């Protein structure tokens, strides 16, 4: 083989190496994230102009630390900054408010994770995204979380932590529940962090059209 041929082969190989794309995962394994209300299907994600989403957590038990961990886990899911959240110290500037309390009575859409006694009796929670009939989400959204037993118990602390991750998953736009118990968005979650299916769902959600818009409420 002549020097010219070798140079041509090397150049072709170099150009192929320089141009080839990365092998991206398919993200085909996911679940329905939209909320069906009557005949309407609600799909929501935070616009870029609202990022980072500001989350305030009541200084009660380990709620602030749990919120930090949950936020970090969900932030890690998004490679292209489609969603990002931070914890803030001032509740009056928050987009999402987390309280250790029972939810108030009302007719808002409830995205609840009620513990099933035999499976996870330690805690329960409800997310109120405050969506009206015109598909506007009036901020702040609210998360109410309560322990059923002493928060000194390790099992209760673990339940509060993973349940808060689940509820923050609702506030970022996953308005439905997974049918797979290995997902954090399973109705009665048992895993500690978002699974690959949770991540796929969240990423696809943020690249799909939304029909619910957030409206600053303060």
């Amino acid at each position: 083989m002549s020097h010219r041929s070798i140079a041509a082969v090397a150049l072709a190989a170099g150009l192929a190496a320089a141009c080839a794309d990365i092998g991206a995962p398919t993200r085909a394994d996911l679940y329905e994230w939209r909320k069906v209300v009557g005949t309407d299907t609600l799909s929501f994600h935070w616009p870029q102009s609202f990022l980072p989403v500001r989350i305030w957590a009541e200084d009660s038990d380990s709620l602030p630390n749990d919120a930090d961990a949950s936020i970090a886990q969900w932030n890690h899911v998004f490679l292209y900054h489609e969603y990002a959240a931070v914890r803030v110290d001032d509740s009056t500037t928050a987009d999402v408010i987390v309280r250790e309390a029972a939810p108030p009575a009302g007719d808002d859409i409830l995205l609840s994770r009620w513990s099933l006694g035999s499976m996870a009796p330690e805690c329960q929670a409800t997310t109120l995204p405050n969506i009206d009939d015109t598909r506007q989400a009036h901020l702040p959204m609210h998360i109410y979380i309560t322990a059923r037993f002493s928060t000194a118990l390790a099992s209760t602390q673990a339940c509060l932590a993973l349940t808060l991750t689940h509820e923050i998953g609702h506030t970022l736009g996953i308005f439905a529940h997974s049918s797979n118990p290995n997902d954090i968005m399973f109705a009665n979650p048992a895993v500690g962090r978002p699974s690959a299916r949770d991540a796929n769902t969240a990423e696809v959600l943020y690249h799909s059209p939304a029909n619910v818009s957030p409206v600053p409420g303060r």
Partner: protein
Amino acid sequence: MLKSLAVLGLVTILPAGALCAQTEVSVALGVTGWTPLVHDYVVQSIDAKPSPGPTIALGIGHSIAPRYTAGVTVSYSSSALRGNYGTTSSDLGHVRTFTAMGTVGGHVSGALHWQAGAGFLHYFHDSQAGFLAGSGTTRLLMGGGLNFRRPMLAHWDLLATANYDFHRFSSPDLRSHGYTQSQGVQRIALLLGLARGAR
């Protein structure tokens, strides 16, 4: 990285007489343009691409034959990184890179010279989110370019450089998200500066 830049910076400000007759040094400023770091698809096409960013390059070379030189070039570049998909453009922070290349070069004609080389490129990142979160990553690099050098002062020449390089990009975070292989990334740098020493 800063140590390397400092050493080369000191060399460039040495009196011309302190340089070996066969040694040349250069410093140049300019801009580097990029192809996307990641080309992805989630419902829609996604490009994570650095914007053209300022670049500083320092070089030192030594004659190894009548028409050839060998040397080292280091450069530092900073660019805003954005994720573009649909009508959305997300802010991925800044990507800062340090490059070190061993080069060989030669004379083309007149004031025009060529150079080619290989080395490494290190990515720094200051964001805790996104595909460059946490520690940076280092990649092998190949490239080449053309230099135009024209005498300007007694010991200083005007230097205009057009460089092309490519590498394969990936990061620990991309791999942990299930990405395989790597993305071909090409860069072009246009630089203007000063050189002195061997002509």
